[in-house]
């Protein structure tokens, strides 16, 4: 997702609230925040990239779910089309797997970790706005992008990513720069 987070600043200052503010205004986002902070061993732990993607890895380290962060979704503005990843494709961390279009911008979605795409969220093609509403919801009807299987490399890639707390600090820093 690169730094789409920055791009609407001039035109839509209101589009860049803090994570805290958006979680108050949107009931769904509070849900995902709770999930991200969960310390349960059964619940997956959500990790974030500097490019604003998130990944949930299952407890057995075999499968995962990928999406873009609430921070990114908010900054993107109205998403008008989501180009979904290709099912069956194997990708490395940082590879472009799809794209979202908003405000005349085609922004790459990158794989947060090495993985193989096993399923994609077709709902997003029909209702791209779901990405704006519930980007971190991995359930049916949510804004998740792809389901994946993960090998050892993928699990290793995860170490470089941020947990929810670190990501929050990171995005606060990005805001402060401007």
């Amino acid at each position: 997702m690169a730094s789409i987070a920055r791009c609407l600043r001039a035109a839509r200052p209101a589009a860049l609230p803090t994570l805290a503010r958006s979680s108050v205004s949107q009931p769904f986002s509070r849900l995902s925040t709770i999930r991200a902070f969960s310390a349960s061993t059964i619940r997956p732990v959500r990790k974030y990239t500097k490019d604003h993607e998130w990944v949930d890895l299952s407890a057995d380290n075999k499968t995962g779910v990928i999406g873009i962060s609430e921070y990114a979704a908010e900054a993107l503005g109205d998403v008008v089309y989501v180009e979904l990843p290709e099912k069956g494709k194997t990708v490395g961390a940082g590879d472009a797997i799809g794209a979202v279009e908003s405000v005349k911008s085609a922004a790459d979605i990158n794989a947060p970790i090495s993985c193989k795409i096993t399923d994609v969220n077709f709902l997003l093609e029909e209702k791209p706005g779901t990405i704006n509403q519930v980007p971190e919801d991995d359930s049916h009807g949510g804004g998740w992008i792809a389901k994946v299987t993960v090998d050892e490399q993928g699990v290793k890639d995860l170490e470089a990513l941020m947990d929810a707390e670190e990501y929050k600090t990171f995005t606060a820093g990005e805001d402060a720069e401007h």
Partner: protein
Amino acid sequence: MYNLRNASIALTRPLSRLKPSSHVTYRPFTSYTSSSLNTVQIYHSTSHNPYLNLSIEHHLLTKSHPDSILLFLYRNAPCVVIGRNQNPWLETNLSALRYGLPSTNNGEVKLVRRRSGGGAVFHDLGNANWSVICPSAAFDRDRHAEMVVRALKRIGVDGVRVNERHDIVQDVKSDGKESTFKVSGSAYKLTRLRSLHHGTCLLDSPNLGRISPLLRSPAEAYIKARGVESVRSPVRNVGTDYDEFVDVVVEEFEDMYGEVEGGCVAVGDDALEIEAVKKGVDELVSSEWIFGQTPQFTFSTQPSDADPRPRPKLPDYLPENLEVSLTVRHGQIRDARMSGLKYGESLDGSSQDQAISKALVGRTLHEVRDWHKALEEASPVSLESGRVGKWLNGLFGVGQI
């Protein structure tokens, strides 16, 4: 297939800011581009081939040094450029593009799908394209549109500003009334490290009055598409020539980022020697990209839940009960329902309809070059009239109408 030889027309006089292209070979171009020593770079294309220019631009986006800032200027021979996630059957009149403009040598107006987002635009040699490539961390939607506004003001173009859609518009007063015209449109491509902002600028196009029919699809009333629809705006030339535009944009760019030693680097057909550029061109000219990249859409002669718009009355020459419905995904017909075709009195029409519908599923829409032929081939028996096929040819911009 386009003709590179024709597409590359030498500039009539050397631009004051540009190096003569004879100094440029592809090797310096690549090493210069990726070098960390040249953080501010300016390129100009001597080619008017839109596929090549977009591929050079993409090459600069992907291969330039991550910290560098680049300006690239080029013009294209007449073409309609659609956004990455648009539908050519909905956004353009494919027959009109093929028929072309009276002012162009070889007639045809090329159809191009770019890699960036946004809507459909018309280019010709009276339109300048400017693009700025910078680190994603420094990306801003308006910064370089503002740069072009300052450049235009420098040559006395009044009333120009960046609007809320990040386009450059000109407010013009005539007879006491103020009207606003679009003179430049913007689109963006954002990758992990690098971001691209490119824009058009209508300078002195002789074709403004002819653009609208090219961007109106005869099938509009029947197509419901996922993806991005264009927003129509009245347009206008700013009234300057290309050389002057290049000069002032380069000056504004250098005011922002510092003077570029050696000035502009000219690129052109020789860039095809770079493997990645050649590959980029091959992709952009392919029907898989131009048509196959189209987001899913339906074509239907009847209103439906998904597309309840009332439909225009079908022409009188078509069978009274004709119904056609197609679902097309990435250019491929996934579902087809045809009914009401005429086969001759003794035949069971509905089972023939079903047979035709079934035979159409799996076909690639842009490979159907003549619907009359396609229906004949799909039909187990001879069709009574070729008019349905001809009507569909008109809507999809192929074959005999």
